[in-house]
């Protein structure tokens, strides 16, 4: 105990180290933007920055959802299928005669997603199946349904769809701001307020940090996990609706890559601010980071695999820098050197 206290004290003694290790992801992202801007002035143009935001939309929204369930210390492997469900259910509903109203279709889609989340929660919490098996199972079952719904390959450019079907994904607000960017900003703000400033959000984090302590404070861990599953499902689904609108179609497989991207953003985010805890601000910055790399590298004319190299390499380098700084400030390296002498 006392030893641990000392390490913390040492860390506090150097505010620079603690600042950099808390915010390095943000600093890194900013530095990266400046770098790309210097290499190609087009990069920092407003239109391009908005494009970056727009391309981060689906990954960001799904990422926030995945963060909510991970913050409650559970996981949801059905997130990819939830994205597909949002797109497919919406596409299918609007191709039916009885449901030509966009808002009705939207409401039904959200209701379906809530049920999906509740199903995951039920199998995990009530029946007691570990979350990753439960959600993996439901994800395949639901994917099967979705394939049946969109008859295999998917629905594209259906004549029944209202013309504004593509508005959320391809439209512009005031003729300049891409709609996905608007959706991302709205959802990010709402979820930031929810997770950081409300009781309900605080409880989700609290259960993730220590479910045992929550019992003694009268907070039901199960309830928070149900909330996490539902929020994850709904947000991933909204991401899917935007995605479907972007591609002007709906496919059962469209969420697969989004899930991995969302997870990556989540992991990046763990290193932001509250180290070691999944958190929404971190995920958002992680999302931006990935989007900036993709956009900037494309502008510089890099090939696809170069992006992977850069993204992975930067992750490793950044984490190494932070670890070394921490070790230095706790005096560990110094002691090692002493030993050698």
């Amino acid at each position: 105990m006392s030893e641990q206290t000392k390490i913390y004290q040492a860390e506090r003694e150097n505010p620079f180290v603690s600042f950099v290790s808390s915010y390095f992801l943000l600093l890194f992202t900013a530095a990266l933007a400046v770098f790309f801007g210097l290499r190609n002035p087009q990069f920092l143009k407003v239109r391009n920055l908005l494009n970056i935001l727009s391309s981060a939309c689906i990954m960001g929204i799904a990422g926030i959802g995945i963060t909510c369930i991970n913050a409650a210390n559970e996981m949801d492997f059905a997130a990819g299928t939830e994205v597909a469900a949002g797109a497919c259910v919406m596409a299918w509903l609007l191709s039916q005669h009885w449901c030509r109203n966009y808002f009705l279709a939207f409401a039904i889609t959200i209701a379906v997603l809530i049920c999906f989340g509740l199903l995951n929660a039920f199998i995990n919490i009530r029946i007691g199946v570990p979350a990753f098996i439960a959600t993996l199972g439901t994800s395949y079952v639901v994917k099967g349904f979705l394939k049946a719904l969109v008859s295999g390959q998917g629905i594209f450019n259906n004549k029944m769809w209202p013309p504004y079907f593509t508005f959320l994904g391809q439209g512009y607000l005031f003729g300049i701001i891409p709609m996905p960017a608007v959706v991302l900003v709205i959802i990010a703000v709402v979820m930031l307020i929810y997770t950081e400033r409300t009781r309900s959000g605080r409880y989700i984090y609290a259960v993730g940090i220590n479910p045992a302590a929550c019992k003694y404070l009268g907070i039901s861990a199960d309830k928070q996990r149900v909330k996490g599953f539902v929020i994850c499902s709904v947000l991933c689904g909204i991401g899917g609706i935007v995605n479907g609108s972007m591609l002007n179609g709906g496919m059962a497989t469209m969420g697969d890559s989004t899930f991995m991207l969302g997870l990556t953003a989540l992991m990046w985010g763990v290193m932001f601010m509250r180290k070691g805890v999944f958190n929404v601000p971190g995920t958002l910055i992680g999302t931006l980071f990935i989007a900036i790399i993709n956009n900037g590298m494309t502008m510089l004319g890099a090939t696809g695999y170069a992006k992977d190299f850069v993204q992975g390499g930067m992750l490793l380098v950044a984490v190494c820098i932070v670890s070394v700084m921490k070790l230095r400030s706790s005096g560990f390296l110094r002691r090692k050197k002493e030993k050698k002498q």
Partner: protein
Amino acid sequence: MSDTPILRVRNLTKRFPGTVANNSISLEVHAGEVVSIVGENGAGKSTFCKMLTGVYHPDEGEIELNGEKIVIDSPILSMKKGIVMVYQERNLVSGITVAENVCLGHEITKGGLLDRAAMHRAAEEVRDRLGLTIPVDAIVKDLGAGEQQLVEIMRAFYANPKLLILDEPTASLSESEVEPFLEFVKQIRSRMNMAVIFISHKLDEVFHVSDRIAVFTDGQCVLTEKTENLTVEKCISAMLRNHEISALEVKPHERTGENILEVRECRYEGKNQRIRVGVERGEIVGFYGLVGSGRTESMECVFGIRPCDVLDADLDGAPIPVKHNSMQMLERGLVMTPERRANGIFKTYSLTKNIDTMFMRKKLASRAGFIDFRKCAQFAGQVLDENGVKYKSQEQLITTLSGGNMQKVIIGRSLRVDGVKVLILDEPTVGMDIGAKYEVYQKILDMAEGDLGVIFISSELDELLAICHRIYVYADGDIYAEFDREHFDKEEILSAAMRQGAERQVSAG
């Protein structure tokens, strides 16, 4: 036997940023001698041992082993030189045999393959040398805690140590296992002419086992004396020379017969426990029993965090339903603090957040659920100051506090629950040093004076005897006996907990 001590330490000093953990410590340990080191948490005991075992390196001073000056720069070297430490936490691999554990890290091989027969023989040899009877082919997890501790020592002896350091070896043993273990330590010391350093919080054990006692206070060795020349009081006053402890004053409690919390029946896990508990306002009721005797489990049922089959209980005259949860009980003024401090805190949260998370429901958040951060900070500051928590900033992580201060946060916030009537404290002082314990005792006495009913669950009988008005003894899930303060009798309570005493009438209220 020569006069050269096995271990001689001179002016050993170790500094950490901001503190001097060990300040010029000198100590000698001779062959065939058990030297106990006692002191509060943070007094420098573990730093001292870590320097002997090569985990830390002294800034100043020297260490002599068998009259020869040595520099210990790694744990492996210290083991080679014959200094072996048995740590407080169990370090056994539970799924394999005793013999395999004893040889772990020093496996005997034949042609690159494990030579089980040779390892078996080697383990048996160590066992016989120590005069033990544990079967070496038993699987470790099938052994009791006491036997596992002995396996740990067998492992230490496999390296043929000259100096054995035991760090709180009895912490994980049950009452009945402690005595034989201490006898064993005394025996190996004289039979094998060993030097033993014994570290413990429990002074009665220390007096029982050691030839000499060294008292550490604030990184200094303030007293080294033969055991027969020392008394417990002298030890405590040396340990606490920097603390002022007011004597605990237990105000007598006049029983009114009106229980604020009354449990007439409580059954769980499909069994047929006999539990009758009554607590009055202003009364401190102790629950004594071994871990798993039902003292914690029954109260978890009442508090609503463990499902129960039958529950017949009243809080302030109104019944508690069988199906209820802790949120409802908190609203009705029943609070419980967890057995392990780790279960009461959010590690990655600041002090403020650790306090205000409990009060989101009404006080510190708006109807719509938005948190009022200004109120939170103010409220948390009050709780911290009221309870004398030592902290630098409200925003520091709770894990940077000492155990005692952490417990003050946990108890302090519990006391601020609206309309709190009964407080259940489950092992609130476990692992704390004496100064911090006394502060908790004083806090409990203050609560009773403030007309709260307090249930104090503990494995340490002495602390219950010191401050409780009444003690219930749990054994095997039942309440087995009840004692009033006038009839406190240590022997009788102990034997009741072991279910040896005569059947006593259990009455509540």
